[in-house]
């Protein structure tokens, strides 16, 4: 089975966000694999171990993303691909990224593509469905269970807390929701092996794409931090009195 995982390098969830020069300040920040993409990588490895085949982890970004790709290889992916757009593209959006990924994947014989349902930085959740549409394959988002039986695929999809049991078939793109699995930590032998696994680096030229082909359709005008909150008030006195006071303060809201 030919399996691809779409991955994104993101800020660590612990990071506080600051802005300098109108942009998110990346200096000294820790980066990780987008947490939802970790579920996708783990699931891909499990599917390969059960059904055979190969897992390729794919990202679009800069040189720095190599670290996260190596982590994915250390978890157990077989190959990694970095489409490096650092030098070619200044402004990109979901149209840009999905067009690039779609172009890369269109002549691969893909059986299954996995991705996170959303990246915790940009938070749009568009890439998976857009890529599936470009490739003309079906997709199911926010899955919590995946079973493959020959061509047939049985999925559980989280829909705002409810579950849908869905039947479909390969080729297919799915996006991972929390609860799909428990992503493994890379083992020491895994990390050693990852160093020797193939990591291919491509640029737009290699995909026969021009900058105009992937020009963003949306524009970011401004980035800003939420207004600082005024210090709150810790109530005092007997618990019963505090509760009465609190209920009074909240009365108009409820």
């Amino acid at each position: 089975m030919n399996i691809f995982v779409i991955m994104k390098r993101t800020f660590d969830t612990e990071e506080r966000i600051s802005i300098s020069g109108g942009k998110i300040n990346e200096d000294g920040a820790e980066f990780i694999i987008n947490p939802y993409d970790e579920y996708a990588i783990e699931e891909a490895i499990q599917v390969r171990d059960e059904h055979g085949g190969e897992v390729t982890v794919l990202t679009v970004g800069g040189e720095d993303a190599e670290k996260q790709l190596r982590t994915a290889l250390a978890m157990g992916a077989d190959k990694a691909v970095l489409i490096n757009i650092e030098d070619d593209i200044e402004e990109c959006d979901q149209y840009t990224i999905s067009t690039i990924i779609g172009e890369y994947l269109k002549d691969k014989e893909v059986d299954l593509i996995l991705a996170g349902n959303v990246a915790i930085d940009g938070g749009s959740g568009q890439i998976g469905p857009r890529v599936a549409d470009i490739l003309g394959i079906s997709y199911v988002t926010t899955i919590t269970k995946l079973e493959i039986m020959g061509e047939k695929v049985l999925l559980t999809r989280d829909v705002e807390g409810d579950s849908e049991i869905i039947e479909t078939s390969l080729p297919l793109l799915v996006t991972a929701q929390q609860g799909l699995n428990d992503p493994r930590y890379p083992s020491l032998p895994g990390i050693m092996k990852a160093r020797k696994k193939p990591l291919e680096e491509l640029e737009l030229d290699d995909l026969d794409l021009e900058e105009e082909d992937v020009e963003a359709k949306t524009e970011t005008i401004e980035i800003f931090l939420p207004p600082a909150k005024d210090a709150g008030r810790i109530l005092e006195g007997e618990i019963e009195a505090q509760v009465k006071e609190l209920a009074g303060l909240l009365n108009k809201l409820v």
Partner: protein
Amino acid sequence: MAKKVLVLGELRDGSLRNVSFEAIAAGKQIANGGEVVAVLVGDNIGSLGKEMLQYGADRVLNVENEKLKHYTSDGYSQALLSVIEQENPKGIVFGHTALGKDLSPKIASKLNIGLISDVTAIEVKEGEAVFTRPIFSGKAFEKKKIIEGIVFITIRPNNIESLSKDENKTGEIQSVSIEIKDLRTIIKEVVKKASEGVDLSEAKVIVAGGRGVKSAEGFEPLQELADVLGGAVGASRGACDADYCDYSLQIGQTGKVVTPDLYIACGISGAIQHLAGMSNSKVIVAINKDPEANIFNVADYGIVGDLFEVVPLLTEEFRRMKVGSSS
């Protein structure tokens, strides 16, 4: 410049979700005086269109087909694309719900256009709409616009205020018949779990529990408080990881991002990942035994105390107030 805007209403269990009315209000802003056309999709829409008109839509299109009973991206995209082709709108608004998140990127890809997801505020300057959306799970915000072509957005529930309902307003409700072919995904079964009560993403009040709740049973007093307030129960990752509740209740950087009018955090320490999911709530109340807990730093009001003592008292107090005000 006035634009025609298409707004998708969303049905659940035979009624319209609030986000449908919020989408009309968003549509009105983008339309800038143009027509707002509401689209309802399903197998049995009945007279729900009337309510869309009362909330400000100028016209309603019902797309009814038995294959549209359950949402599928194939079925709904065929329905929407055929309406878009027929109406040729200059703006499109969906809710940023499970349905909207799944469907909107496919429609955007099919139309080869940009899409701004998860919008929480809209401003119109010289006829051009600028959209605010949270990034980094609400740790920051960005303002975006569509460079050219159709303005396509999804709006986060509970952020853009719907217009007030006008019971006397009427308008045209048209039926659109379309043929739905090739559904590649089949819904075999829907298992209802969390949404028996109020939906977290649309709840005006959320009572959330963390590790301090100590057990699945520990969530019962929180549920009682939520019931009295007509709210929903949520949880921190800690509570979900400890198996006190289902992951579908998780609020945070992974999990749901919520912005209710009132968020009551019980026994939640306030890890930065949790704050990312709720810090934009309008009023935050923290109840925690530990006076040093980080949650107090974002709270408007705090009570340092045992949640198992405070929460039932609070429930009692609100119950008393409700009885008082309704008599």
